[in-house]
């Protein structure tokens, strides 16, 4: 392979030579380490030493040597004490520059010398070829291709010199860039890796990497189960010495440490495994992993492994088992491909599979399909050709779906519950576990929307309390107390003291003999209560404490919504540092939407508003709006209307008025004061503009007056909420701030000139500067920007 000169590497070698510093080059195979060194020192007559069988090829007397450059290649193989001693000696010797080349990490036996010698370190990153270097190389070997081909080669080669070499090779022969070329190149690289790496490692390590390569993430426990006693620590240590960072991690996933292999290397290992392992060995490996995942309750990974092992029966069995858990815990969405892959006639043989399909379709927003499967379940129960036992199962599942299916909403649910209760009393059925919250920090806005019940909350609670506790079992502990606390909070009809007390009681009930999901409800209400009262540190403390508890109890089903709540809470503090990571982890709603993620997406809208990504925010709000309408999510519909109003207001689109009016109208029906109020300073300017057009708003209307009062309270407490935090903050002089305040107060030009003691032309100059700094075209825009940047609050 002809040498690809890499400027970054050349520069570092030059620097090291000029300063007479030791060099250590650490990169895995194929990056061109040896070639780079050979090329740089080709006219300098260095002493080349290699390592074999753990020893240096020779150890000439340093004092008698006439060379002043010593290069040691394959340092990762060195383990002989005498050879190590020799390396240390030559490093300390004045007048000799030492260049060490290794596939491993910095050797431990040189740690003590690291600081003194101040090694020049050259790593894989330095060898990585950027686009310009790829283009330069292709030209140097007389491969003339168009820019778009250079782009593709650069992208597909991943900046890896050896891959680039093979691409150049094929292109030189006149081949067009294609998927076939990609495959060829990487298979050549894989064959090279075989020779240069995998064939040279220990049997144990080879077996280890082939054993764990199909798994996206692997823990120490999984490794032990699959490889009978091998530990990641031992393999990491081995790896460290011979090939640097082969696998990455640990990363914390659901409270446990996991490692992973990089994509390309994984691809190589899978290729190797397919070539070298028998089908039986492969299958056994997947079955072992599947059983382990299944025991851990990791249904998606268990299913993946069963699929790889071609175990259709186990897949069906696991999908059936999955249906026995409620959607908050069960894996419907992340196993949908397996449900959808089942033949219909297979599904129709098992009531649990039919029920699973119905629930899964509802979660991915296909209510018509969900209904189809629910009807199939009803048909199944009526079909006397089916066994009595399975028909009973169908009856149980139908009863469950009639209550729990999200698209059915809560209309008529009490009649359904009464009928189900009759069946329970008659001993005909026993209901599977049901959770009212759907893992949200809410009952009213949980698995179903119970906003309608808030209109007669006390009365309904009086009658429903006991039946609900019986039907829901442990999920009923604390439910009535919390439902009423939440209703009272949202309507503003319960004092903060009472809300907090009820939440405390509900929390205790939930956590002693109840379910942690109810605890989350209590926390959600308390957090919102604290926010309304301006008690931001208390809100954070409550959430942090619950998060600790949730993690201690491994309540993985709550992690995502807890994380979303953390981000939302941070927005009140004007902090935006969590936004990037949050947005990057959330899947696109257009690609992979599950209704159980609704809370996370509502927080996403707020993050997008902060980032001024208004079109995206509006698109998401519109998308969610369709779901809210279809599934009778009244609470979220109200929240969504206010957020849409804020977005459109900031886009200077007059339709904001329609949405804020709708929001108020819908909220008024339930007396939900706190939904708009929670948006504080983001929504306050809109109310003020509305009042300008309709001054009667703030006079006779008790509901509106309460909304304004609480919104103002929240806006004052959290001036940075949903404020765009510019990368370059707006810097106004004190005079400019003074004038801007007066502009926002609606003072006339004459009044401002008189109060400030400046001339008209002086004021014009200040205004020009203010508009420029705010990026505003005129006074109205400047006022608007000042308000939502939090520079000025009216009211």
């Amino acid at each position, binding site marked *: 392979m002809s040498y690809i000169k890499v400027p970054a590497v050349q520069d570092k070698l030059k620097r090291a030579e000029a300063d007479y510093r030791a060099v250590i080059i650490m990169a895995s195979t194929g990056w061109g380490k040896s070639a780079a060194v050979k090329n740089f020192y080709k006219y300098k007559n260095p002493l080349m030493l290699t390592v074999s069988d753990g020893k240096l090829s020779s150890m000439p007397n340093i004092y008698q040597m006439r060379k002043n450059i010593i290069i040691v290649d394959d340092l990762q193989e060195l383990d002989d004490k005498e050879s190590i001693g020799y390396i240390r000696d030559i490093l300390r010797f004045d007048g000799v520059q030492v260049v060490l080349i290794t596939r491993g990490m910095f050797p431990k036996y040189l740690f003590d010398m690291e600081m003194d010698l101040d090694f020049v370190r050259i790593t894989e990153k330095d060898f990585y070829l950027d686009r310009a270097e790829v283009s330069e190389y292709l030209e140097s070997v007389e491969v003339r291709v168009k820019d778009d081909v250079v782009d593709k080669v650069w992208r597909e080669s991943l900046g890896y010199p050896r891959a680039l070499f093979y691409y150049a090779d094929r292109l030189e022969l006149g081949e067009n860039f294609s998927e076939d070329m990609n495959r060829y190149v990487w298979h050549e690289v894989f064959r090279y890796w075989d020779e240069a790496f995998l064939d040279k490692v220990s049997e144990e390590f080879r077996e280890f990497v082939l054993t764990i390569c199909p798994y996206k993430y692997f823990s120490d426990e999984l490794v032990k189960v699959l490889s009978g006693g091998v530990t990641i620590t031992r393999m990491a240590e081995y790896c460290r010495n011979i090939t640097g960072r082969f696998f990455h991690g640990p990363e914390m996933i659901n409270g446990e440490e996991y490692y992973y292999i990089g994509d390309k290397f994984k691809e190589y290992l899978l290729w190797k495994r397919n070539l070298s392992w028998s089908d039986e060995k492969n299958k056994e490996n997947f079955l072992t992993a599947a059983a382990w995942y299944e025991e851990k309750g990791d249904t998606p990974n268990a299913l993946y492994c069963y699929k790889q092992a071609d175990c259709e029966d186990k897949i069906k069995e696991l999908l059936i088992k999955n249906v026995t858990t409620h959607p908050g815990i069960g894996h419907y969405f992340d196993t949908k491909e397996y449900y959808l892959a089942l033949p219909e006639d297979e599904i129709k043989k098992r009531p649990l599979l039919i029920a699973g399909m119905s629930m899964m379709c509802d979660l991915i927003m296909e209510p018509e399909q969900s209904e189809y499967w629910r009807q199939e379940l009803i048909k199944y129960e009526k079909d006397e050709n089916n066994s009595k036992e399975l028909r009973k199962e169908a009856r149980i599942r139908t009863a469950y779906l009639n209550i729990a299916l999200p698209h059915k909403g809560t209309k008529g649910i009490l009649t359904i519950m*009464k009928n189900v*209760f*009759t069946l329970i*009393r008659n001993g005909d059925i026993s209901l599977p576990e049901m959770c009212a919250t759907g893992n949200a920090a809410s009952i009213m806005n949980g698995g179903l929307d119970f906003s*309608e019940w808030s209109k007669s909350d006390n009365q309904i*609670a009086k*009658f429903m309390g006991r*039946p609900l506790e019986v039907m829901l079992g442990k999920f009923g502990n604390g439910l*009535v107390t919390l439902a009423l606390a939440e209703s009272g909070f949202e309507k503003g009809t319960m004092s903060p003291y009472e809300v907090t007390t009820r939440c405390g009681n509900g929390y205790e009930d939930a956590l002693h003999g109840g379910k942690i999901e109810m605890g989350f409800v209590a926390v959600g209400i308390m957090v919102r209560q604290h926010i309304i009262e301006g008690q931001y540190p208390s809100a954070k403390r409550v959430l942090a404490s619950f998060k600790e508890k949730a993690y201690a109890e491994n309540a993985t089903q709550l992690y995502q919504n807890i994380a979303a709540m953390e981000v939302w809470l941070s927005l009140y503090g004007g902090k935006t540092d969590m936004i990037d990571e949050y947005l990057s982890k959330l899947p696109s709603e257009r690609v992979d939407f599950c209704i159980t993620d609704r809370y996370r997406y509502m927080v996403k809208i707020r993050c997008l508003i902060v980032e001024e990504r208004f079109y995206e925010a509006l698109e998401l709000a519109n998308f969610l709006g369709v779901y809210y309408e279809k599934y009778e999510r009244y609470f979220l519909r109200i929240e969504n209307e206010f957020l849409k109003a804020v977005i459109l207001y900031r886009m200077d689109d007059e339709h904001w008025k329609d949405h804020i009016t709708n929001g108020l109208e819908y909220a008024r029906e339930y007396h939900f004061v706190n939904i708009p109020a929670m948006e504080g300073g983001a929504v306050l300017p809109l109310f003020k503009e509305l009042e300008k057009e309709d001054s009667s708003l703030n006079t006779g209307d008790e509901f509106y007056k309460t909304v304004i009062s609480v919104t103002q309270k929240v806006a004052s407490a959290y001036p940075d909420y949903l404020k765009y935090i510019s990368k370059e903050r707006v810097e106004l002089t004190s005079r400019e701030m003074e004038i801007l305040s007066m502009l926002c107060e609606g003072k006339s030009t004459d009044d401002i000139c008189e109060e400030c003691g400046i001339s008209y032309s002086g004021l014009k100059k200040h205004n020009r500067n203010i508009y420029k700094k705010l990026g505003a075209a005129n006074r109205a825009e400047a006022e608007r920007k000042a308000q939502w940047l939090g520079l000025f609050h009216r009211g």
Partner: protein
Amino acid sequence: MKWKQNVSFEEGDKLIAVINNNKIPIPESDRYIAELMLAGISEDDMLLDIVSKKLEGDELKAGLRLAQFVEDYSLLLEEGEKSSVFET
């Protein structure tokens, strides 16, 4: 559970509730509960007791039945007292 002050009734073959000049017919299935309240029985526990006797002594089913009634006629009913739910 009480009717709102401004609710009146027209009795006859059908029982009709009137509020703000709107007439709301009460179906036969709900009539007995409405008439219990018209007869002055407003205590929730007493209503539960009577309705549960009608439902073969099942207090839980009675609770669901009355909750349904509340949901259906929320516009006509006074807001319940908190004390009726929470112990003071």
